[in-house]
């Protein structure tokens, strides 16, 4: 299966699901060509609403549509959506409106556009809200399953999607289950927990580490909220060391969530790989190397962590 961006798989899934379920509608803020809902808008013109560059109003309208029985997908770049946090907080989360908030262009992986367009704090913001699950799929297969799940799930949900192409990582018989992670590669020395755009790189890092005699377990954590506490606890108990890998700030993201759970429930040495500074312009490959999200960088951090 060729590599595909999760935003592209999302756009395809919406058209397939939209044909069967007329409750599905999309809302955009002048970025439908980037969030990949433009195809849905073309296929179902009466069910796609472009509100212009006005994200707060878009999110509020989505809430009203949800309260009258639609299943709205409110889409924009992740950073612009959480910039309207107060509207998400009250009109969606507290109102318990069945809105699917879709944040695309996450992480430094978007590259040349630079920090102002990079979703690097979105998980931290949304994770603080009760009642809003967060899902970040890692490849095309998983994305399509997650979008179908989002339609069926009653209540708000945050879906985090990449601009960049994602290599296939899920096993052939994969089935997404809410709140559950997927063990991609068993290991004994260290647990690597990755999500979205970093999952493939974590797998590659594990292959490199194997050459150095380090057995790394790799987990795809599509469900960032809630965590798969059972798998996290079991793996941490087995390997005794955990590394999280995400294209997001280490504060409040997957790493933050794992740190919170481990320190309360099963204290385990932990290293969080993620951003600690603003992003910047550059080609995505160089940026991943700079931030240590590429396979070499992940392997280097793991080896150093194990040597500590």
């Amino acid at each position, binding site marked *: 299966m060729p590599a595909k961006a999760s935003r592209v798989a999302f756009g395809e899934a919406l058209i397939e699901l939209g044909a069967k379920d007329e409750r599905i509608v999309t809302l955009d803020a002048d970025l439908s060509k980037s969030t990949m809902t433009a195809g849905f808008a073309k296929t179902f013109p009466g069910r796609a609403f472009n*509100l212009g560059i006005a994200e707060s*109003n878009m999110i509020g*309208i989505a809430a*009203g549509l949800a309260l*009258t029985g639609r299943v709205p997908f409110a889409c924009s770049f992740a950073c612009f959506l959480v910039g309207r946090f107060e509207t998400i907080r009250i009109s969606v989360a507290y109102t318990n409106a069945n809105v699917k908030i879709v944040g695309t262009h996450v992480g430094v992986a978007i590259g040349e556009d630079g920090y102002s367009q990079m979703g690097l704090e979105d998980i931290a913001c949304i994770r603080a809200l009760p009642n809003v699950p967060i899902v970040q799929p890692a490849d095309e297969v998983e994305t399509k399953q997650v979008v179908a799940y989002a339609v069926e799930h009653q209540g708000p949900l945050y879906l985090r999607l990449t601009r960049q192409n994602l290599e296939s990582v899920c096993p052939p018989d994969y089935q997404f289950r809410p709140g559950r992670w997927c063990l991609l590669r068993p290991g004994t020395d260290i647990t690597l927990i990755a999500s979205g755009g970093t999952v493939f790189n974590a797998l590659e890092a594990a292959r490199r580490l194997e050459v150095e005699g380090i057995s790394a377990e790799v987990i795809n954590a599509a469900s960032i909220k809630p965590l798969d506490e059972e798998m996290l606890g079991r793996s941490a108990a087995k390997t005794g060391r955990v590394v999280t890998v995400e294209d997001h700030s280490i504060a409040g993201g997957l790493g933050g969530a794992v740190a919170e759970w481990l320190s309360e429930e099963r204290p385990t040495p932990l290293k969080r790989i993620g951003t600690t500074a603003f992003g910047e312009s550059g080609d995505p490959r160089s940026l991943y190397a700079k931030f240590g999200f590429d396979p070499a960088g992940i392997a280097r951090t793991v080896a150093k962590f194990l040597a500590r």
Partner: protein
Amino acid sequence: MADARLDAIARGCRVQIIRMLTHAGSGHPGGSLSVIDLLVAIAFGRLRHDPRRPDWPERDRIVLSKGHAVPALYCVMAKAGYFSEDALITLRKLGSPLQGHPDRVALAGIEAATGSLGQGLSVSLGLALGAKLAGLPSRVYCILGDGEIQEGQVWEAAMSAPKLGRPDHPVDNLTVVVDYNKIQLDDFVTKVLDLEPVVSKWQAFGWPVIEIDGHDMAQIGKALDQAEATKGTPTLVVAHTVKGKGVSFMENNPEWHGKAPRPAEAVAAIREILGVTEAAWDGYLETDKAAAAIVSELRALDKT
């Protein structure tokens, strides 16, 4: 319903607003008293709803975007039968569904969580559009505060509304009312951030605008009729109101935006609302057992 009957209901609601805020010891009397006539005119004059089925899909909907005035809405809901009037005095108490600002999950009949100002018009647009998409006959009434329209999201919504859903589903099933009481939390609106010219601003955004006295039931009814008859676009009603309306010492006084009366003040306020002179008050209470019960209940608060 006859205007005199609506006035009577509004008077009863004003008494309950004072009562519940005094029990709560906090809350917003000024904006509750300025908006109550508008809410009563909508809820008892025309709203299609069923208190026994708050989730009836075809119901009309009220979104009180200026959520701090929710005591007024709670009084209207109790009067309509959503819950008992006895429950009104649980306002703002731990465990009560009558939260300090509207909570849709806690209380059936509340259409949206509001109180974080600026969001209700967008939600109302979505409700109106959703009703149209579903082929429902529902009408949506959104009530904005005047200070609230200082929020940028209101103008995002205002800009999007006239074209939203067109050509097949214009949101002409939406009536928006601005409770223009001229006072916000800190001071008079003109001193904090003047809104004028309000009417021409909304007109410039493509809205038909009707200007009325928001305490005159005949004018309110006529404006709501006119809004309902308008096709192709939502309508804005600018309702000129008096903050604290009905209680002389609260009227036009920014001090009473967000402060509850003390029991003695509450009793004086209720007497004024009922239009009874001080001299006639004791005699009146012997004839109005309901008012007498509220007054003795409030006086008891002073002793606790």
